[in-house]
């Protein structure tokens, strides 16, 4: 092995996000400017992942695209953060979101990263196989002669 790189992903490819949503049975509302949430920021959550750390609370509920889980009221927004990066934001008060997609909606994040990586590797001529480890990690193995 010759190099290894790791880091948190950034959402850049909207088409891949839509494909990831569809693979999970979610509805991607492309171009939606608002997403469903409690509606008023009451400053009652201060976890490490609290949205106000990255996103101005004045803009809560506004987004560039929205994602809906069928039969769940609250939605997930694709929101531009203070650094100009697209992030997923949602109201944790509706437990149905994490019940469906895991803590930090990791199932959606993994599905998106898969789509993006597969496209990039196939463009370079790699054949890809996917496995899911017992610890939940998704592994894409790409091979080219």
């Amino acid at each position, binding site marked *: 092995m*010759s190099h*290894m790189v790791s*880091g*948190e992903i950034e959402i850049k490819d909207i088409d891949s996000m839509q494909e990831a949503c569809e693979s999970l049975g979610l509805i991607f509302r492309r171009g939606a400017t608002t997403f469903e949430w409690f509606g008023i920021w009451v400053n009652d959550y201060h976890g490490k992942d609290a949205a106000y750390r990255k996103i101005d609370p004045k803009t809560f509920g506004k987004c560039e695209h929205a994602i809906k889980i069928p039969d769940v009221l609250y939605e997930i927004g694709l929101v531009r953060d203070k650094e100009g990066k697209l992030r997923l934001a949602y109201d944790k008060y509706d437990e149905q979101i994490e019940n469906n997609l895991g803590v930090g909606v990791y199932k959606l994040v993994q599905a998106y990263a898969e789509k993006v*990586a597969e496209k990039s590797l196939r463009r370079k001529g*790699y054949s890809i196989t996917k496995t899911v480890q017992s610890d*939940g990690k998704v592994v894409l193995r*790409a091979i080219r002669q």
Partner: protein
Amino acid sequence: MKEIKVIIDQSGKVKVEVSGISGKDCLSETKELEESLGIKNGERKLKPEYHCLPVKGIRNAR
């Protein structure tokens, strides 16, 4: 054979491992992948193989 492994954990972190490619070709092979995932500023560790010179083209000398 060139091999790239992409490991996506449950916290949204992605690890990319490359094997079968040495030197700077190794870095360029995954540049687009890393940029499309937005992890170009991630932690990078070069493995021993990175420092190996490619043997292709070396002739036997007597």
